[in-house]
């Protein structure tokens, strides 16, 4: 595709359930980021993948959150035993350049609502 694709666009789940959010970055982009944005707030960094390097997981809020990137392309963010405070828009972005050296292309986000 021409841009970063995220799915699902909306997810409503019950507290305690697991959810998986998917990101298809732009082909050839080695950098991939996950951010979280709560209503009216800024972007909270979650995790950063850069090529074959070990990911920077320093932003993951708890061990209920995990992410993987398979084959240097598609990424999945998994939230286990969801809590109401996990409700937010989860944004994925990819870039050809590492470390902020080039623009990030964002997807439209996955809006997660935990009831």
């Amino acid at each position, binding site marked *: 595709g021409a841009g*970063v694709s995220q799915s699902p666009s909306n997810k409503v789940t019950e507290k305690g359930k697991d959810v998986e959010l998917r990101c298809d970055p732009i082909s050839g982009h080695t950098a991939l*980021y996950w*951010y979280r944005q709560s209503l009216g*707030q*800024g*972007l909270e*960094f979650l995790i*950063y993948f*850069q090529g074959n*390097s070990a990911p*920077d997981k*320093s*932003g993951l809020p708890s061990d209920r959150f995990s992410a993987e990137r398979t084959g240097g392309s598609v990424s999945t963010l998994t939230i286990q035993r969801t809590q109401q405070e996990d409700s937010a828009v989860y*944004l994925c*972005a990819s870039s050809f350049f*590492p*470390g*902020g*050296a*080039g*623009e*990030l*292309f*964002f*997807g*439209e*986000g996955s809006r997660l609502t935990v009831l």
Partner: protein
Amino acid sequence: SQKIEQNSEALNIQEGKTATLTCNYTNYSPAYLQWYRQDPGRGPVFLLLIRENEKEKRKERLKVTFDTTLKQSLFHITASQPADSATYLCAGGAGTASKLTFGTGTRLQVTL
């Protein structure tokens, strides 16, 4: 920890005036600063990138500065229009394998 700070209060200006938004960084020295525009319900869209060795960069009605002494970037929109109304996000990156850290954004409202 590294931090990007933006004025969380909304900026209201009249059409035709110049809007100036401020971004300050603390606890690190980013090699790059980026500015994004975000409309409600949409993902951020890239506007400009400036490197630490560049004082100023322009693109059409947009201008961004990078002051390593003040640890600050200013983002200007000249001849502002109602269509410029949006939230503007500043982000800093130290290069190589480091993450890009975003500020909380400043909402700009341009009125007729």
